[in-house]
């Protein structure tokens, strides 16, 4: 087991090294220079050169790459070219918005999808099922930013229950902060819950026709009892897979929603950094996302091996 884990760890390191090189090269190839972006169209060429030197952009690419990777290995993501603050701190600050938003949206989406999916499956073919399926079809088809704009129009501009956007920070109180994330979370959650409800329904229907369900019914359980005691637990496996996929989508895919609600999250940071060519921020954020995916895969590999001894000998 230890040898297997070491092998996996080695492959994790190699993946990270390759990923960092690819990210660095791809992002550095993009035309545009942070120094000229900052100094605008009246600056003298020698001023731009002076700023490039100050930012350390005049050293060769390879050297900059090594400095970046070396820094990251020590947990130092470098300093943003435009903001001049540590990139690690910037990412951490943004995470405090993006992560709770993703979790909130995921919770909402699950809360909506589970009852809707179970209800539809239990009433297969009846008007209730058709209504739920119709609504989810709409939910899948309509983009989340449209929902976002409608929510702002109704709840912020007309009813004045919520602000149109912005995030006041967690220090004003948990519930007030949560309130300001509510409209964005709903906008993110609705399309996701539509997908999840459909998966829940079809997964349940598959299970309902299984032999063990028939046995359960034959033992004398009612349709509903069989569904709750034996059906649901088994139907959850594909649903959990989808929830896992949705979480990473919600974390990285909030860019548009963060724009519409002007939230200071990770998506907006990437958006701003790309247009200002704050390359070191873009590189570090992308690297962080890649790292989290690779790390999750690594943990899953280890978990598989723990469950299935055959995997250990095969590799």
């Amino acid at each position, binding site marked *: 087991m230890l040898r297997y884990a070491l092998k996996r760890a080695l492959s994790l390191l190699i993946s990270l090294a390759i990923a960092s090189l690819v990210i660095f090269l791809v992002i550095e190839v*993009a*035309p*545009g*220079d*942070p120094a*000229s*972006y*900052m*100094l*605008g*169209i*009246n*600056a*003298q*060429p020698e*001023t731009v050169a*002076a*700023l490039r*030197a*100050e930012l350390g952009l005049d050293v060769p690419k390879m050297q900059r790459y090594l400095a970046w990777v070396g820094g990251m290995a020590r947990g130092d993501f470098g300093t943003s070219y*435009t*903001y*001049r*603050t540590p990139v690690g701190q*910037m990412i951490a*600050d*943004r995470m405090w918005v993006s992560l709770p938003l993703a979790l909130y949206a995921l919770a909402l989406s699950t809360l909506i999808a589970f009852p809707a999916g179970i209800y539809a499956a239990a009433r297969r073919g009846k008007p209730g099922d058709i209504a739920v399926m119709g609504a989810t079809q709409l939910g899948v088809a309509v983009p989340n930013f449209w929902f976002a*704009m409608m929510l*702002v*129009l109704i709840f*912020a*501009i007309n009813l*004045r229950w919520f*602000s*149109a*956007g*912005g*995030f006041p*920070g967690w220090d*004003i*109180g*948990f*519930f*007030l902060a949560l309130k300001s994330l509510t409209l964005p979370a709903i906008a993110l959650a609705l399309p996701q819950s539509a997908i999840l409800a459909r998966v829940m329904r079809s997964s349940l229907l598959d299970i309902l026709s299984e032999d063990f369900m028939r046995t359960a019914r034959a033992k004398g359980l009612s349709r509903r009892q069989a569904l709750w005691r034996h059906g649901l637990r088994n139907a959850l496996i594909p649903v959990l897979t989808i929830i896992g996929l949705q979480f990473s989508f919600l974390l990285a895919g909030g860019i548009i929603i963060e*724009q*519409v*609600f*002007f*939230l*200071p*999250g990770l998506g*907006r*940071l990437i958006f*701003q950094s790309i*247009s*200002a*060519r704050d390359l070191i921020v873009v590189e570090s954020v992308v690297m962080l996302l890649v790292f989290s995916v690779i790390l999750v895969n690594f943990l899953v590999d280890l978990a598989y091996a723990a469950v299935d001894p055959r995997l250990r000998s095969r590799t």
Partner: protein
Amino acid sequence: MRFLTGRLAMASLVALAAGLGAAQAAQDDITVAMQLEPPHLDPTSAAAQAIDSVVYINIFEGLTRFMDDGSIVPALAKSWDISDDGLTYTFNLNQGVTFHDGTTFDAEDVKFSLDRARAEDSTNAQKALFAAIADVTVVDPMTVRLTLSEPNGNMLFNLAWGDAVIVAPESIDDIKTNPVGTGPYKFANWVQGDKIELMANDSYWGSAPAIKSATFKFISDPTAAFGAVMAEDVDVFTGYPAPENVPQFEADPRFQVLNVATEGETILSTNNKMPPLDNVKVRKAIAHAIDRQAIIDGAMFGMGTPIGTHFAPHHPDYVDLTGNSGYDPELSKKLLAEAGFPDGFTTTLKLPPPSYARRGGEIIAAQLRAVGIKTETSNLEWAQWLEQVFRGKDYGLTIVSHTEPFDIGIYARPDYYFQYDNPAFQELYAELNKTTDAAKRSEMLAELQTMISLDYVNGYLFQLATPTIAKAGVQGLWKNAPTAAVDLPAMSWAN
């Protein structure tokens, strides 16, 4: 757990009640929204207008400053004497001025700031403003003397720019994230990506401002901007990004709308070295093919003043030269035929992100097509635009608003991206810089404006105006923007 939720709910209620209480007292706070967030807060080392919007006049002050009508008035300098030969400026500084960190402001700080801006390794985006300064001498703590290498009629104007504000050596290292100036407001807090908060400086040397605390919010998306104003989340939105919504705000008694004239000459920049655009007849044909009013109406929803040269119409020395390039497609076709292009030609039109460029570009492309000039239009991000068009000079036509005040001097730089190289212009401009006599300057400025108008260097479109949307009770907003600024000390709430 129940205890904890109870506590949190209680805290939220208290916070809510506190908020309501503040709203009922006389209002002395304000929330100002703008589209772009400053990259950092040092106005002396970047061109971003967003920096000036937050810090100019509020946090940092210069020796002189702009008023909203474009006039230059004393700021940290109480008064000044200019020697007869125009080479020596002696500034008398205000007494009792301190920086926000408590250190004293004196002539040493002025010397430090100006020397830093004009140094070899300076990263000042407007370094040219200081080119004429040969020496800065501290006469005594309250007097500083500038010696120029040649007379400069613009010196007091140059010193009013945000790029010329006075900073202190004690706090310069952290200026980008913790700006320390002499102004009526202190920097309080910055939630990056969201907002910057300022609060009134109790030990300000001048009169205390009516607004005690101000929040700048950054809302880049036009739809979000509309929502934030309509929901009254913000009190003022400067540079409101969606002019199409303006009539709706004008009709709503809750709001006031100001069409703020800016220093932005919006032009169809032309690569004067790229054939066939190197032919003045071709450039003249382009100028006559353009219907300015159609662009103002179509791209800017009626906001903006037509211009015929690179000069702001609200400037006293402006000459209306729009007649040199009136809309006349027939004349345009004739000129093209004379230049040897009876069937027109094809060139590139590279458009940066602002809506004046993207929307204006479509209209101009259609107008040029009507006289036979085909354009290959492409949309670029700013960073790409700077690389390809501005630095690489790889373009035929582009649309940009040149927002720096009094920037006709860029036509004297043959390596500038227009690549306009006219020795007569360069000599006259050098002469202008040395001239301090107002009447003579006026005359020379008229000649410079006419020269570039008749050389058809660029297509001159309109002076950019940007809407400010504010709640009806906000007073003291700028009606013109001679520089990017949100003049908080001038603002107050009507009761």
